């Protein structure tokens, strides 16, 4: 009798252990079919010449190209500043909306619209605005802030100025995205734990630092990782404002090679470049997880 019981318990235990793997199995199967296959294919092709001979030529071609290093620097600059600025502003905004003022639901909808705008629309919006004869200068002139001679030439700035422009435009579109993830996290925490903090005499800042942010850690990690990954892959807005090759970034170079130039040779260059991009993104994500201590936290559990 006792042994039978033990048997069923054991069975139950193993079955329980199987559940998470069963839940994850579809993802693994899916990724095997639709990701590992094409990616392996692309990696293999990136090590082959047009004639199908194994070679490092594609990578050497990239590393000899000065544009690649500019793209690398620009991307690093873009990712670091855009992710930092976007996170700080989005977090502030999420805390603000979380106070639930009158009209906050409408405000949330408003904040979500930029996120829903297609990249092409965002590109059209800003290129029509930042052109020397665009709506930005039209507004300034209509309100007599500048005269015709004083038109601001937005798009002719140097590399750094243009990068800041891109960071601002990206922030305009992406902050709502980060904000909603953070807001969802804040909702999950609930007001009780914060109220407890106040009852025990905490100031607003202390409660934020000691209670809200630590409890929000998993959400923050999610938001940051997703942002780091997509910030590295910003390209369409840059191409729509500046065209290819003027403000090179990594992914713009990939698209340029794969789609724009498109011949067999450049396709392989694009694939090699993609491998490099993937390595860099992974390194950045792992670095973030290490620095933020997400690994240790999971290990404690």
């Amino acid at each position, binding site marked *: 009798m006792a042994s039978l019981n033990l048997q069923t318990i054991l069975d139950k235990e193993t079955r329980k252990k199987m559940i998470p793997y069963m839940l994850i199995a579809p*993802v693994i199967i899916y990724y095997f079919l639709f990701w590992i296959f094409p990616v392996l294919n692309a990696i293999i092709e990136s090590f082959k010449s047009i004639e199908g001979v194994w070679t490092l030529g594609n990578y050497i071609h990239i590393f000899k190209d000065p544009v690649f290093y500019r793209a690398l620097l620009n991307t690093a600059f873009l990712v670091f500043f855009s992710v930092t600025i976007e996170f700080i502003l989005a977090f502030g905004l999420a805390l*603000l909306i979380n106070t639930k003022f009158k009209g906050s639901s409408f405000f949330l*909808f408003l904040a979500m619209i930029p996120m829903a705008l297609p990249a092409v629309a965002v590109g059209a919006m800003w290129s029509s605005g930042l052109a020397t004869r665009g709506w930005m200068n039209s507004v300034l002139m209509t309100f007599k802030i500048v005269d015709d001679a004083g038109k601001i030439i937005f798009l002719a700035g140097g590399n750094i100025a243009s990068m800041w422009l891109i960071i601002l435009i990206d922030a*305009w579109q992406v902050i709502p995205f980060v904000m909603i993830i953070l*807001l969802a996290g804040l909702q999950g925490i609930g007001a009780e734990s914060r109220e407890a903090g106040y009852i025990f005499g905490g100031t607003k800042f202390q409660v934020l630092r000691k209670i809200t942010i630590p409890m929000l850690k998993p959400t923050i990690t*999610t938001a940051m990782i997703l942002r780091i990954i997509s910030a590295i892959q910003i390209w369409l807005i840059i191409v729509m404002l500046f065209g290819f090759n003027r403000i090179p970034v990594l992914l713009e170079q*990939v*698209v340029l090679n*794969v789609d724009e130039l498109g011949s067999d040779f450049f396709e392989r260059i694009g694939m090699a470049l*993609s491998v490099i991009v993937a390595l860099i993104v992974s390194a950045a994500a792992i670095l973030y997880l290490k620095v933020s201590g997400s690994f240790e936290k999971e290990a404690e559990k």
Partner: protein
Amino acid sequence: MHRIIKRKLLRSARISSLYIIVAGIGFIIIFPMFFLFSFSFMSDYETYSEWPKPLVPSFRAEFMIDKDAEGYHLHIYNKADGAFAAFGPLFFTRAGEDLENLQKFIKRQANCAITPSGIGEQLDVVDKEGRVEFTLKKEFLANYILFFQVTRDAPAAVMRSLMVAGFTILISLSIGGMAGYAFARYYFKGKNLLKLSVLFVRMFPAVTIAIPMIIILARMGLADQPLGLSFVYSVGQISMNIWITASVFMAIPVSFEEAAMIFGTNRVGAFWHITLPLALPGLAACAMYSFIGSWNEVISAVVLTQFNPTFPVVVYKSLVGTQGQINLVTAGSVAQALPAIIFTLIIRKYILQMWGGVRV
């Protein structure tokens, strides 16, 4: 007494500063979008010949015709200059061909409709009085109509895009949500590594995956089809949905499920009756991200479609073709943005439940 007044003052100061900040942010959000919208209703003349450009499109255009020894001259009122300016051909006559060309020119440049005989009537007045001024109503949706005429495939492409988005939501939310639940609720070997490697999927540029995918989809008989495209889109969406749903499920205490299980339901029942309703807002947000991601994606679709393009591809290609026609470009952009915005509006209700509606 004094203290109460002081506190009230402080409170109202805090509230008004909150609203000032909110209004400021709202302004920053609306300001550029207003011009995207505004430009999409402007005629070529308003967009290119008036400087500074009008900030709002006009509903009508004013014309003036006068005549001299050469023939008749057409002018249009330039709002920026505050005066009539020469418009169209140097001069024209009453010949039928001239009037037809003029009709086309006015339609194309000023988005106004007038028949050749209508022009003829105005010319009668010119003959009598030496000059005539008349106002025509602008066809307000002219850019949109032109955009859908130029891109004849647009309605079918919209349908295909909706299908792609629907499939993508279905695939990525079911597969991603299941895994997200596993990551949130269970501890198992390799959890960290798995959760991280799921993200690696997004790290390889999607454009590059699209190229080998052409062959894979062709083997499956899904090349150039909405379902095939949604398989590609789901790759990125699944990994994002896993991370979002994982944090959504994590926020719902396990104790709720355990309590339900004590009262006699099993894990599935507890999930179905307790966790899922609580997680619904987060899942809705996931669906929204998937829709937007799929609806707005261009570059993989450019690579992967041939005869059955999605709507963004149609817009993208027509925009690349009409370089400089910014009023047409904006009309196409607004047309493409509209469904995503409407979808956001619908799904907003569920996202709102995140705060207030559901107490976790």
